[in-house]
C-alpha cells in the first residue's frame, strides 16, 4: 500500500466516509453542517487521548492511565480556578501533572522493567482516586475565560477553536511519527524489540518518551474537556481509556505493535463519534448504542484479519513464483 513515501490512506478512511453517507440517508437531520462540526467537536478530546494511546500500543504496550490523567486535569483546572489561581499557573500545573504521571509510568516500565499492565493499571487507580479526593466526590463547576474560549469559542462558520487546536496537535504528532528518530524507533521497538536493541536503538528511552507524551496529551485533553463543560468532573475520563483503545485498534494499530499509526487513529476516532451521533439521531437508546458499536468493532476486525490472511497467502504464492 505504501508507494514512494506518500501518505497511505488506510482502508478505514473509506469506511468512515461510507458510514457518514449512509447515516445521511437513514438518520433524520444527520446531514447538516452543524452536525458535521458537532461530530468533529465531540471527537477532539477523544482523539488527543488516542494519539498517546496509539503510540503506547505501537510499541506493543498500553497506557491504561490516560483516562485518570484526564480526570485529574479537569478536576485540577476547576478547583484551582475556583481558588483564584492565575490561569497560566493552572495550565502549567496540569501539564506538569501529565509529565509527572507519564514519567512515573515511563521510569517504572523502561528503567525498572515493571510490567506495563500492572504499572499503568496502578497509576490509573491512584489518579482516579486522587481526582475524586480533590473534587470531593462531585463535579466542580467553574468559570474561566481561557477555558471557556478553548472549549466553546467558534470561528466564523461555526468551527470551534477546539477543532483547530486538536488538528494542530495531531499534525505535530503525525510529523513526529513520520519524520523523527523517536517516531521511527517506535516502529522498531514495537516491531521487534530484540532487533531494535541489536540496531543500537535505546529502547528504554523510547518507551519512556512514549509514556511521557501519553501523559502530556492526556492532561491536555483534561484541560479541553474541562473547558468544553465549564466543569471538572472527577470521573470524566473513565470511559476514555477503553474508547481510545477501540479507536486505535479500529484505526489499524494492533496490540502486537509495530504497525499502524496516528492517521488511522484519526479515522478510528471519527468512526466512533459518527456512530454515536448517527445512532442517537436514529433514536436508538444509548444502552443499545454500546452493543451496536461493539458489533461494528468486531466486524471491522474480522474484515481486517481476513484481509491480512489473504495478503499472507499471496505472499506465499509470490515467493513460490520467485523460486522458479
Amino acid at each position, binding site marked *: 500500500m505504501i508507494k514512494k513515501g506518500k501518505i497511505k490512506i488506510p482502508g478505514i478512511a473509506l469506511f468512515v466516509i461510507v458510514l457518514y453517507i449512509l447515516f445521511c440517508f437513514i438518520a433524520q437531520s444527520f446531514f447538516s453542517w452543524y452536525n458535521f462540526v458537532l461530530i468533529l467537536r465531540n471527537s477532539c478530546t477523544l482523539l488527543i487521548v488516542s494519539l498517546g494511546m496509539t503510540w503506547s500500543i505501537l510499541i506493543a504496550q498500553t497506557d491504561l492511565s490516560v483516562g485518570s490523567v484526564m480526570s485529574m486535569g479537569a478536576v485540577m483546572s476547576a478547583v484551582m480556578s475556583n481558588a483564584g489561581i492565575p490561569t497560566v499557573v493552572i495550565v502549567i500545573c496540569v501539564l506538569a501533572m501529565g509529565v509527572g504521571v507519564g514519567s512515573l509510568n515511563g521510569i517504572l516500565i523502561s528503567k525498572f522493567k515493571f510490567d506495563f499492565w500492572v504499572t499503568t493499571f496502578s497509576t490509573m487507580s491512584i489518579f482516579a482516586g486522587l481526582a475524586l479526593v480533590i473534587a470531593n466526590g462531585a463535579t466542580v463547576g467553574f468559570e474561566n475565560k481561557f477555558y471557556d474560549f478553548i472549549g466553546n469559542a467558534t470561528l466564523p462558520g461555526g468551527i470551534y477553536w477546539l477543532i483547530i487546536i486538536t488538528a494542530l496537535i495531531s499534525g505535530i504528532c503525525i510529523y513526529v511519527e513520520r519524520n523523527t528518530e523517536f517516531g521511527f524507533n517506535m516502529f522498531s521497538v514495537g516491531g521487534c524489540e530484540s532487533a531494535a536493541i541489536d540496531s*543500537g536503538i535505546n529502547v528504554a528511552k523510547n518507551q519512556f518518551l512514549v509514556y511521557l507524551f501519553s501523559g502530556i496529551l492526556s492532561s491536555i485533553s483534561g484541560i479541553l474537556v474541562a473547558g468544553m463543560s465549564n466543569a471538572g468532573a472527577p470521573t470524566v475520563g473513565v470511559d476514555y481509556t477503553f474508547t481510545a483503545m477501540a479507536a486505535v485498534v479500529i484505526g489499524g494499530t494492533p496490540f502486537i505493535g509495530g504497525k499502524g499509526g496516528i492517521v488511522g487513529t484519526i479515522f478510528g476516532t471519527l468512526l466512533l463519534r459518527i456512530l454515536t451521533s448517527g445512532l442517537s439521531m436514529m433514536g436508538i437508546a444509548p444502552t443499545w448504542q454500546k452493543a451496536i458499536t461493539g458489533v461494528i468493532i468486531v466486524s471491522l476486525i474480522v474484515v481486517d484479519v481476513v484481509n491480512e490472511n489473504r495478503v499472507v497467502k499471496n505472499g506465499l504464492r509470490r*515467493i513460490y513464483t520467485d523460486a522458479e
Partner: protein
Amino acid sequence: MYRFNEENVILRMTDITKRFPGTLALDHVRLTCEKGKVHVLLGENGAGKSTLVKVVCGLYSLDEGTEWYDGKEVNFSNVKESMAAGIGMIHQELSLLPERTVAQNIFAGHEPMKRKGIIDIKKMISDSQAILDRLGLDYDPNALVKKLSIAQQQMVEVAKALSHDVKLLIMDEPTSSLTSKEIRTLFGIVRRLTAEGVAIIYISHRMEEIQEIGDCVTVMRDGQYIDTVDAKTATMDDLIAMMVGRKLGKMYERNFQKPEDIIFETRNLAGLRFKNVNISVRSGEIVSLYGLVGAGRSEIAMAAFGYDPIDEGTVLLFGKEIKHPTPYNCVKAGMGFLPEDRKTQGLHLAMPIADNVVEASLGKIFKRGFLNSKRENEIAEKYINDLKIATPGAEKLVGELSGGNQQKVVIAKWLATGCKFLIFDEPTRGIDVGAKSEIYKLMDTLVGQGYGILMISSDLQEVIGVSDRCYVMKDGLITGELEHQELTQERIMQFAFGGKGATE
C-alpha cells in the same frame, strides 16, 4: 597453524574470558582477524562462538582479556559503540521489521538526520539505493520487507550492516535458510566485500562452505580455543576431530531392512503450493522428500499433518482415510510431527522436560484428566534413558538443553503418544555434527522397531545417507522417486532442477 599478516590485522582478542552465572562461557579464547579475509568460526552448539562474537560487537562485556581493534585497545559496552567503530553483525535469525520499508530497515537506529532528531527521508532512500546498488540488488527501497522472500530479506540484512561504514562484518550462519543459488549470490557479495578490504567473521555449520569461502578457520570447543588453521588445506575430518575432540565414527549408520506394509499414503494431494502428490511410506522405512526451497516440500508435510488446508485428494494412515485432517485428528490417528523450528513450534522452552514429553499424550496417560507427577516423571525418565537425552533430570527446563537434546525431547513427545508414523521436518537443522549422527542413529533404531518416517530435508548428504527412498520435488510436483542405491547428488539435482532425466 595459520600465519597472519601483521600489517593487516584489524582485530586481535587475547585471553578472552566470559562468565555467566554457573558457567564459564569463554575460557581464555583468542581470535585474530585480517582485513580482506574471511575468518570462519567453527564449533558445536554451545562451543562459545556466538558468545565470542557478541563480545566483539559489545552485546556482552568481557570479564577478562584484551580486545585490540583497529590499533586501539577497546571494550565496547553496547552495540552503538561497536557500530560507530565499524563493526557490523548479521544475526542468525532475521531481525527485520516486516511492516517497514527496505530503506527504513536498512537505516533502523541510525537514520541520516537533517537536524538532531529529524530524519532526512530523501537522503535515507537515496543512500539505501546506493547500498543496494553496491550489492547488485535491484529491490525498491520503498518496498515493505514483508513482501520480500526470506532470501531477499537476508540480503537486506547484509545491506543493513553495510549502511555503517563497516570494517569488520560478523555473519552468524547466514546461509541456513538459503537455497544454493541464493548462497552463490551471498558468496558473491562476501567476495566483493573482502576485495574492498572488509574483514569477515563467518560462523557456519556447513563444512562444504568453509573451503569455498574461508581463508582461515578457528575451531572452538566447550568455550575454549582449539586452533586456527588454513581453510584451504584443512580436511573435513581434521576439523570435525577438532570440534568434537574425538575422531568421528561413520556419520550415517543405517541397517537397511525389508520394509513392510504401507502405513502412510497420499492420493492426488493438492494444497497451498503443490498438486498431484502421491507418496507412500512403509513401516520400517525412512523416506525423504527433497526439493529446493520453494519447491513445496514443507507445505506437503504441513498439509498432511492437517496444519494447512487441502484443496484436493486424501491422506491415508494405516489404509484409513483421515477425514478433515487437522493436527488434532492426525495425532489421534497416529501421526507425529517434528516441526522445522523446534524452539517455537515443537517445544515449550520454559517448561521442564517431563511436561514437554507428556504434552501430546495427556489424554492417553491420564485417563480421568487428573495429572499425576509421579507417573509423568516415570514416563519422562523412560524416554530420557531410551533416547539418551543428556540431562541431570526430568525437571530440567527444555530451554537449557542443547539443540540435539531438545530435538530428542520432541521425538520423545511423539513416541509417548504411541504413534507409528512420524514426519521429520529438517530434523538436524542448527544441530552440531556430533548430535546429528545421534539423531540419525535414533531414526534408524525407530524404523528398526517398525516406525515409518517421512523426512523433509534440504541437506543432500543427509538425504543420501539415511533414506531408504527419496522423492524429489520441483515447483510443487513430485518429479522423481529414487531407491537408496540410486541416490547420488547428481541424480537428485537432475530431478530437483527439472533438467535431464526428469519426467515431464
